[in-house]
């Protein structure tokens, strides 16, 4: 059974990559509940982070902003942020 929060993450990463699927290593890390993947490993610029957050809001209705992300370092923190609200 798919995890809806992780599906939102994967969808948002794809949106930030303008439709390209998440890199396999990142997708695998999300699926495994990895807590070591750093946000800077995504190599997103400011525009990509905006697209990421827009996608999160479109998918989940939750308002994650680029400013929220500046206070985070790891991908699991975004997942936990979403889980706390969904």
């Amino acid at each position: 059974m798919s995890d809806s929060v992780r599906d939102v993450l994967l969808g948002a990463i794809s949106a930030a990559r303008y439709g390209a699927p998440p890199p396999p290593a990142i997708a695998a890390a999300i699926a495994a509940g990895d807590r070591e993947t750093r946000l800077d490993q995504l190599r997103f610029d400011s525009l990509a982070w905006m697209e990421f957050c827009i996608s999160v809001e479109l998918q989940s209705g939750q308002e994650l902003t680029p400013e929220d992300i500046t206070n985070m370092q790891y991908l699991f923190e975004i997942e936990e942020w979403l889980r706390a609200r969904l």
Partner: protein
Amino acid sequence: MAARAALIMLATSPSATDYLPLALQCRTQNEFNKLHIQLENILAPVEFTHFADLAGKQLLPERSCAWLKKIEGLSPGLFDAPQAFTRRSLSENVLLYQDPRREAADKSLLVGFAGDARRLMVPISVFLQCLDSRAWDVVLLRKGRQKRSYSKGVEGVSRSLPAVLRYVRSAVSAQQYRRIVTLGTSGGAFFAVLGAILIDAARGISICGAPPKSPLGLRLRCRLALHRAFAERKPEFEFVYGAGHDRDRIAALAMQGSLGGRLRSVEGVDDHNPLAPLLMRGELAAFLESILA
């Protein structure tokens, strides 16, 4: 649900005069960002004078002022001395930027192939501000909502890349210009090089391009071969990449290997966007002048 619906609705191409009602409708920061990404992808430099007027009259919300401050930081001359490009939509995904007071015969035509972010790596007004509107007209091609590869044309124009270039030639009477240059970034870069062949350009420039993962269709390959065989003049090709970005460097080498042309590395850049660091260093205008010359 309301937030989702609002975000989806903010998907049209607003004009500068529509701005205030649209900005005031944005209930969340993400709605605001989505609107402003779209504005950055289309607005010409002179359209920002409208925003400057609104800011001067203190009619703008605080985050709009923050956005304008960001744009001004990227392009300090944009509000005081904007390049005289005006914007016209030839089609939903084909935009013409020109100073209509200047004759085409005195200018060159730049055909831009935007990447998947629907821009040339920086806001279009910032890019245009680095050009001289007395010397250039710019046609900007964008991928549509489906993000279809340019090998399958441009949504709203044609499913054929050669037909898209024929459309551009006709729509702007390209034969009037002194010369034509094509330039593409990222997902548009390889096709800018092909476009240079198809539109008989003097030069085709790839910025961080790569050959497509799927082979080009037979019809397109034949068309390209015919153009190359019978063209009176062959375009010069230039392949630009960040010196520290291995994947882009390897892709540039691959394209140079099959098409010929010149490599151009941008020192001090390890991102898949050399134009933004050049902009921050105050070097983008000079760089564009050197590759477009």
